[in-house]
């Protein structure tokens, strides 16, 4: 396979069908997810929002194949998910980069596991993605020498390098300072437009979700389920400080309060 073919944009549609998941905890069984149905189109950017404990990260882990649903199924391009796969890359809240490798070799890690590529091709692909996130100069740097924002950029390059169809992001910017985060919102949107991935982005920050997502899926906790969906038809690239985001964000916030409030009254 040539580098050119390797760098082609690929994407996938995703469907979650009647997924349920419970966990055992000290307080007994916890219904993390109940009757989850979700369709994500090819190349769509979907944000999952909700308060903690609503199961959004659990759903992400199920899609990643890091955990299995109790019932229901998850299909990527109509093929059921049975475990982790190179077609679905995950970015975690902590960068999860390997401190024993330098920046370049971190990006190369997933590529080395990809068959049908020669080593020079792998290196070329890694360079391409390091350039994409603007860190060419830091190829030889150690992870601990990088700032939080740079680490997440490397993590993004590492996740993109094996050319997954779906990118799963779990509160990826949650641990960063506000300025760095704002900068990364812009970069992520640009990269998404260039690379055309299907992205599922988990966050509890509603404004962040509105800024990034084509669609925002609202979850509510106990049991974790989807309560409402919102289309965000704003033009790209969006700025987190754009007042146009505010009306969407406040609508979602109101819906969230209503769902949580209604349940508290019912209980």
């Amino acid at each position, binding site marked *: 396979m040539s580098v050119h073919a390797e760098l082609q944009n690929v994407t996938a549609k995703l469907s979650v069908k009647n997924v349920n998941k419970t966990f055992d905890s000290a307080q007994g069984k916890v219904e993390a997810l109940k009757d989850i149905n979700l369709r994500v189109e090819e190349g769509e950017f979907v944000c999952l929002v909700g308060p903690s404990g609503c199961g959004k990260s659990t759903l992400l882990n199920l899609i990643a194949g890091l955990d299995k649903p109790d019932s229901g199924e998850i299909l990527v391009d109509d093929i059921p998910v049975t475990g982790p796969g190179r077609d679905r890359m995950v970015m975690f809240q902590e960068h999860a980069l390997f401190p*024993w490798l330098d920046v370049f070799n971190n990006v190369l*890690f997933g590529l080395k596991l990809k068959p049908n590529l020669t080593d020079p091709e792998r290196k070329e692909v890694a360079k391409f993605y390091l350039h994409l996130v603007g860190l060419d100069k830091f190829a030889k740097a150690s992870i601990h020498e990088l700032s939080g924002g740079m680490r997440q950029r490397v993590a993004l390059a*590492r996740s993109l390098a094996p050319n997954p169809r779906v990118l799963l992001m779990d509160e990826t910017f949650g641990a960063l300072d506000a300025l760095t985060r704002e900068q990364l919102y812009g970069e992520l949107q640009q990269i998404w437009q260039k690379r055309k991935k299907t992205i599922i982005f988990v966050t509890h920050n509603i404004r962040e979700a509105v800024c990034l997502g084509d669609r925002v899926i609202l979850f509510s906790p106990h049991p974790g389920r989807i309560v409402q969906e919102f289309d965000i038809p704003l033009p790209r690239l969006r700025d987190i400080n754009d007042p146009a985001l505010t009306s969407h964000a406040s609508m979602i916030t109101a819906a969230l309060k209503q769902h949580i409030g209604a349940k508290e009254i019912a209980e």
Partner: protein
Amino acid sequence: MNSANYKRWTISAIAFIALILIWEVAVKGLGLFEYILPPPSEVLKYIWGSTLDGTLPSAILVTMKRLLLGYAIGLCIGIPTGMLCSRFNIFQDTVGLLALGLQALPSVCWVPLAIMWFGQTESAMLFVVVMGTVWSMILATEHGVRNIPPIYLRAASTMGSKGMHTWIHVILPASFPSILGGMKQGWAFAWRSLMAAEIYVTILTGFGLGQLLHYGRELMEMNQVIGVMCIVILIGLIVDKVLFSPLEAHLRKKWGISKD
């Protein structure tokens, strides 16, 4: 080297040179401790003489061969066993528990048993060194592997790493800081127990540093005893600088652990 460092080195050097000079003058010039303490010049003379006639270099060679071979065997057994303990509870509850117990045993306590099992042979020496190394290695490896942040394994598995690949490319490097700690401890135990064993037992296939020390005592050659002690200290320091310091520096650079 900056000027503050330079100053500290100078102070250390002056202090030690002064100590040696005072010692020399006290014994040779003033005749103090004449029979129980040889002057530094005599110690140096012994080291120089025995280096020239080959006894000291050959003893160092014999000792280092035992030490390095036993240490290498200890690492080769200890690291994989530690990994098995971290992965399978059945190993942890048997071998792991045994390691915990035997690690508390000063490794010189293996010497009598080694002699009864192997006689006065090289194998007895090797056995003592291996016993000194292996238990710390098992415990350190097991501890290191168990304390790897789970997120490394999750990240690796999403990138398609599994089985042996994960062990070699993720688990082993991720637990390296802990393994290095075990290597240092194992080295210290092995070195001490080998010296004890060599002083204790004469092995006819080779005279090590411990034996030189022992015969120094038998012959009341005080300068030999102190000379060999100096060599033993020197070897300990050199190994630390040559083997462990570069590894620790590497870790600091890569991982950013304990900046200084």
